[in-house]
């Protein structure tokens, strides 16, 4: 177990990417997979590997995140020593950089890193959804004698677009990272950096210090991956299913992936369970005319109509004769009798009134804002 590791989850993600969904919440708090939020995945992965000390680097709109995670109870992080910490800078003083890996995000939280008693650090972003066994990463790090281990994913030529922008690795046979590019090679497979870095806490502090002294500002490009010759940076390949939540269409597509039982099983069970805030939910009730196929349904719903190829979050009510297809209905949506929803993404508490129709296309699913009534 990685109990000698300090986990850092940097949730300073670009907030524009998910459009309407991130208007009132940070990316980390975006609902995901029927009953989760984005943060649950990176956080559960750390907890499942035995990491007991985790700092969340927050920025704006942290309200929904704090009330989701609270004291970390559901992640077994409500402990007397270590546990979960929210680290927000002083916004009244601080010029906030929109760059996720700006060194200033780290210098303003340096005290937390310095006073930790853990020997290692695992730093991740927040927009990669997967179920990864970080114990294997730690083992790989030891076996390779690496100073830094960066996790990457081999992607197919046709996947490059959906994951862009990303850092591309050129990796030697013995897994050492030789080159980093911000433009992917024009043809062939590629190695995508997934922004998960494992290194000693000491080295992280040194790299931050060096960046500051040399007036460099990107911790990943200039710090962690800035000196591949002198610092032994190894690439650990994650072979599993992985989604990058960097656009509404990826968000939609990823949810449709979950309808493959193989993906469902892997994402929710592979290296350990994904934890989320517990709610006192009632098992979902299916009425006499319900007909649900190839769909995911969370608890607390009442299903009276027809549902196909869709993800139904908690607390959704679907009336008799209503027909939902190829859609994602977030928490507490109400779909009245005889209404139709196709290729749509309904934010929380949207209501589609009796007989109305909401439909988009596969390429451009329609998005309905929180609490709207159609």
């Amino acid at each position, binding site marked *: 177990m990685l109990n000698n590791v300090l986990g850092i989850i940097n949730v300073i993600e670009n907030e524009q990417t998910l459009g309407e969904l991130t208007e009132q919440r940070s990316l980390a708090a975006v609902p995901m997979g029927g009953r989760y939020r984005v943060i649950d995945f990176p956080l559960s992965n750390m907890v499942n590997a035995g990491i007991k000390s985790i700092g969340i680097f927050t920025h704006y709109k942290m309200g929904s995140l704090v009330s989701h995670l609270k004291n970390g109870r559901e992640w077994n992080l409500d402990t007397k020593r270590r546990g979960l910490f929210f680290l927000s800078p002083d916004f009244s003083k601080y010029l906030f950089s929109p760059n996720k890996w700006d060194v200033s995000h780290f210098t303003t939280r340096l005290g937390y890193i310095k006073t930790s008693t853990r020997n290692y650090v695992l730093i991740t972003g927040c927009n990669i959804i997967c179920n990864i066994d970080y114990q294997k990463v730690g083992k790989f790090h030891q076996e390779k004698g690496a100073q830094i281990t960066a996790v990457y994913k081999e992607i197919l030529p046709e996947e490059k677009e959906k994951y862009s922008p990303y850092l591309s690795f050129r990796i030697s046979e013995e897994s050492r990272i030789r080159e980093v590019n911000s433009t992917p090679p024009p043809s062939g497979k590629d190695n995508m950096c997934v922004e998960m870095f494992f290194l000693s806490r000491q080295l992280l502090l040194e790299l931050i210090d060096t960046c500051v002294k040399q007036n460099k500002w990107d911790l990943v490009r200039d710090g962690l991956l800035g000196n591949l010759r002198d610092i032994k940076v190894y690439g650990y390949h994650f072979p599993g299913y992985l989604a990058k939540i960097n656009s509404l269409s990826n968000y939609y597509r990823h949810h449709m992936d979950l309808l493959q039982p193989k993906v*469902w099983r892997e994402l929710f069970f592979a290296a350990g369970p994904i934890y989320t805030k517990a709610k006192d939910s009632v098992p979902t009730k299916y009425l006499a005319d319900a007909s649900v196929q190839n769909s995911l349904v969370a608890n607390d719903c009442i299903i009276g109509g027809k549902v196909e190829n869709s993800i139904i979050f908690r607390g959704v009510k679907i009336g008799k004769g209503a027909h939902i297809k190829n859609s994602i209905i977030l928490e507490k949506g109400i779909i009245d009798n005889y209404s139709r929803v196709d290729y749509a993404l309904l934010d929380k508490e949207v209501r589609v009134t009796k007989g109305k129709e909401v439909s988009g296309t596969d390429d451009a699913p329609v998005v309905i804002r929180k609490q709207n009534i159609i």
Partner: protein
Amino acid sequence: MKKEWIALVMAGGQGTRLGFLTQTLAKPAVSFGGKYRIIDFTLSNCSHSGIDTVGVLTQYQPLVLNSYIGNGWHWDLHHSGGGVTVLPPYVKMQGGEWYRGTANAVYQNLEFVDIYNPDYVLILSGDHVYKMDYSLMLDFHKMKKASATVAVIQVPWAEADSFGIMECDPEGKIREFEEKPLKPKSNLASMGVYLFNRTFLEEYLERDNQDSSSQHDFGKNVIPAMVRARESIYAYPFHGYWKDVGTIENYWQANMDLLGPEPLLNLNDPEWPIYSENPNQPPLYLGPSAKVTNSLINEGCVIYGEVDHSVLFPAVTVGAGAVIKNSILMPQVQVEPGTRIENAIVDENGIIYVRKEGERIKGYA
């Protein structure tokens, strides 16, 4: 740490009539309704009624129940200066003895009651399924200036002989209390919910303890003795769903009572949620060939087959072509493709109890 009232929940019974369900479990710990354990109802009622101090009296197979109750977190009963306390029998300076009946169990825990110095003590049963605001009963009790109040519900006359039956005067004062009478004089049945003035209760428990002919049971001995002595005992009429799930038939029926658009027992009540442990399972997956109707199904299930008029606990798998009807599938049950299960209760170990309309239940492994 003075409290106005506290509750004591009887959870020590062996529940032999629930058969395999209680072989390794106390009856209040038996699973119910696709998610809950039976005791969730009583403890949620306490929480919503504003009772913050609850003792749970256990002695039979309490391992699961004790660890489930924990510090009462699930029911918001975990706060300092109160909360839930599990009360097993124990050894005192003068030795230890097992609980010999509901009244004796309370008698042995009067020390616990004294800690909180309450004016009223509410005695509850951990194995009934109902939603009830006990604070209304307390208001009634105060209004009547009663020494004890017994909650009652009207039952069908034909079933009255299996309950404790009360006869009352027009004011609601109880004139007669008969446990399982051959010829019931009324159809007002005791729900096993008793509210006592504390000193009054202590007095009668002391007396009952010295009575060697007593079975030390509230329904059989203590309440009848109070009524016989013409004490000020009132019946508080309750209107709503209430079920003693002490037999397989009742247990099965109570589960089925949750189904349909307007179920007899409504769990989707934002004003009176039933608190429980919340298992961490991904959303239910329904495959391309799934057909699910008239059912209550929890998260974590994977369904390729057909489910009708049934209750499924978390992480149940129903293979393609399987048909489940009028049944209850406990957590983790795996139903192989093509299997047909009807009128049955299936537990984790694959034990199936088949229920036939109007007949006794028979079981096989």
